[in-house]
C-alpha cells in the first residue's frame, strides 16, 4: 500500500449498526479528495477512524505510510484536522487556544510557536482578533480558528470535515481559495462534505459513501466526462426530431439530447435544414446526477415499518 490515506476492508460496528461497512479508500499525494455522503452515511465515523479516535472493528488503515491507530504518535503530527466543527476553550483567547493545543502533542516546537500562530491567524483572516475570549466569537470566526488550528504545523495532509460550515458566502470563497493555495504548495486535502457544489468546485477525486459502503471512487473528470451525446437548444424541438430522424434520445421543452459526440456535425445538419439553434454543447452529467444515481434515499430518513 502506498498513498496518503489507504484503507482496506474498513468496518466499524456500533452494537447492531454497521456504520462503516468494508470501505477501501485510496487518497494519493496531491489529491483534493472529496468524501461525499448523506448525513448518517458513515463519513464522520470514517474520519474518526482515520485519526485514531474510533477504533475499527476490522480492516486496515494506513495514514501517511503508518498503520493507524498504532502509528498515531508518528504520523498524526503531520496531519491537520477539523472534525465535526471546531471546539475551543471558551474562556481563553484564540491565540491561547492555539498555543495550548500545539503544546499538547509532539511536533510543534515552542520556539516557533508564536510565529506559527501569527502566520495561521493571518492565513485564516483572524490576524486582528486580539485577546477576546473565544466564547465571544461568531460561528464563522470559530470555524476560522478551527482551520487555523489544523494549519498550525504545516501539515502534509488536511482532513477537513465540513470546513465551510457556518461561513457566509464570502467566507466560503476565502476558505476555498486558501485550500487551493495550500494544495498548490503540496498539501493533500481530504474534504468530507455533503455539499456537492463545494466538492465539485474543489476536488479532483471523489469517494461517495452510502449507508456505510463506498459506492463510487473516481476522478471527477472521469465521472463528469462527456456521455457521447450533444445537447441542442432550439425554439422548435419538433423540427429537430424531424430532421435528425431516430437520433433524438430525449427532449425536454427547448432542450433536445441528440446522439453523437460531435456538436459541429449536429449543428451543420440542423442549420442545413433551416432549424434555428440557440445553444449547443456536449452532454456532461453533473456530479449531482452521478452521485444521486449511485446512492439510494437519504439515510437519515426513517421510514415506517409496514
Amino acid at each position: 500500500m502506498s498513498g496518503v490515506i489507504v484503507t482496506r476492508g474498513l468496518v466499524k460496528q456500533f452494537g447492531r449498526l454497521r456504520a462503516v461497512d468494508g470501505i477501501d479508500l485510496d487518497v494519493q499525494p496531491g489529491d483534493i479528495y472529496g468524501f461525499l455522503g448523506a448525513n448518517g452515511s458513515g463519513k464522520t465515523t470514517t474520519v474518526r477512524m482515520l485519526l485514531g479516535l474510533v477504533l475499527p472493528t476490522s480492516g486496515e488503515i494506513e495514514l501517511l505510510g503508518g498503520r493507524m491507530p498504532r502509528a498515531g504518535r508518528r504520523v498524526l503530527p503531520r496531519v491537520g484536522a477539523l472534525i465535526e466543527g471546531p471546539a475551543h476553550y471558551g474562556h481563553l483567547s484564540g491565540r491561547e487556544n492555539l498555543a495550548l493545543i500545539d503544546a499538547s502533542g509532539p511536533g510543534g516546537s515552542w520556539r516557533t510557536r508564536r510565529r506559527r500562530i501569527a502566520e495561521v491567524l493571518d492565513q485564516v483572516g483572524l490576524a486582528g482578533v486580539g485577546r477576546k475570549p473565544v466564547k465571544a466569537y461568531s460561528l464563522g470566526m470559530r470555524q476560522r480558528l478551527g482551520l487555523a488550528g489544523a494549519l498550525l504545523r504545516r501539515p502534509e495532509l488536511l482532513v477537513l470535515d465540513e470546513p465551510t460550515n457556518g461561513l457566509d458566502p464570502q467566507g466560503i470563497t476565502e476558505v476555498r481559495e486558501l485550500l487551493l493555495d495550500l494544495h498548490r504548495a503540496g498539501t493533500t486535502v481530504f474534504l468530507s462534505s455533503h455539499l456537492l457544489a463545494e466538492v465539485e468546485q474543489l476536488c479532483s477525486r471523489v469517494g461517495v459513501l452510502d449507508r456505510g459502503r463506498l459506492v463510487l471512487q473516481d476522478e471527477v473528470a472521469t465521472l463528469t466526462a462527456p456521455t457521447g451525446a450533444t445537447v441542442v437548444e432550439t425554439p422548435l424541438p419538433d423540427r429537430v426530431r424531424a430532421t435528425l430522424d431516430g437520433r433524438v434520445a430525449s427532449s425536454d421543452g427547448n432542450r433536445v439530447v441528440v446522439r453523437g459526440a460531435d456538436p459541429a456535425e449536429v449543428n451543420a445538419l440542423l442549420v442545413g435544414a433551416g432549424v434555428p439553434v440557440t445553444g449547443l454543447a456536449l452532454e456532461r452529467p453533473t456530479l449531482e446526477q452521478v452521485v444521486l444515481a449511485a446512492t439510494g434515499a437519504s439515510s437519515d430518513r426513517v421510514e415506517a415499518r409496514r
Partner: protein
Amino acid sequence: MILVELRKMFRRPRTWATIGVLNALPIVVAVLLVLTDLAPRPGQGPPFLSAVLSNGALYPLAALAIVLPLFLPIAVAVVAGDSVAGEAQAGTLRYLLARPAGRTRLLVAKLVAVLAFVLVTVVIVAVVGYLVGTTLFHAQPLGSTVLGGTGTGGAGVGGTSVSGTALTPQDITNRTLMAVGYIAVSMLGVAAFALFFSTLTDSPLGATLGALAVLVASSLLFTLDAASPIAPYLPTRYWLSFVDFFRDPILWRDITRGLELQGVYVVVLLGAAWANFATKDVTS
C-alpha cells in the same frame, strides 16, 4: 502535556472561584466564633473547633475539619469529574487526541492536574485558616499548647485520646503538615472515583454526581450498624483519622489503614479509568 493541563486548570476562573468558596465557610465560622465567643463543647461539632478560642494556631485544622465532610469532596469531585468528560462535552477531547496527545499521557496529565488542585486547595485552606486563626483568636505561644484535656476543650476526639501533654511548636507544625498530607490522600480517593466516572460519560455533571453518590452512600452506610462488616472498606471510613495525628503519641493504626485503603481505591479506579479510556471510541 502536564504543564498544559496545569495551565488549563489554574487559568480557569472556576478553579479559583471554587477555592474561594471553600475558604469562605471557615472564615464565616471564625468570625461567628469571635463575635459570640460560643465555641462548641468539647467532643461536639467539628474537631478542633472547641480548642481554637484558646489557641488560634489550631485554626488550620479546624478549617480543614469544617470543609472535609462536604465542601472539599464536592470541589474535588467537580474538578476531577470535569477533567475528561468536560473536554468531551466541549468537543476539545477529539482535537487533543487527534493532535495526538496520547490517551495514557492525557489521562496521567489530567490526574496530575487534579492532584495539584487537591494539594493547592488543602494548603490554601490551611494557610487561610492559620491567618484567620492567628488574627482573630489568641495565638498562644505554642510551647504551652495543651491538646485535649477538659479545661481548654478537647480535640473533638472524646476522652480516649492520650492528650493533655504539651506539644512544642515544631511538633504542632510537623503534625499539621502530616494531617494536610493525609487529607490530600483522602481526597485523592474521591478524585479517583470522579476521574473513572469521567472516562465513562461525556457529561461532567454525571461524573461528579456519580462520585458524590458513592461518598454519600459510604457516609450513610458508615452510620448503619448492619453495614459494620463492610465499614472498614468504605472510602470515607478513615477520613477523620487525621485527628489521630494530634494524639500523643500519634495513633497510627487508623491512619495507616486509611492510607492503605485510599491507595487500593486509587490504584484500582485509575487502572479501570485507563483500561476504559485507552480503548474507548471517542465519538464526542
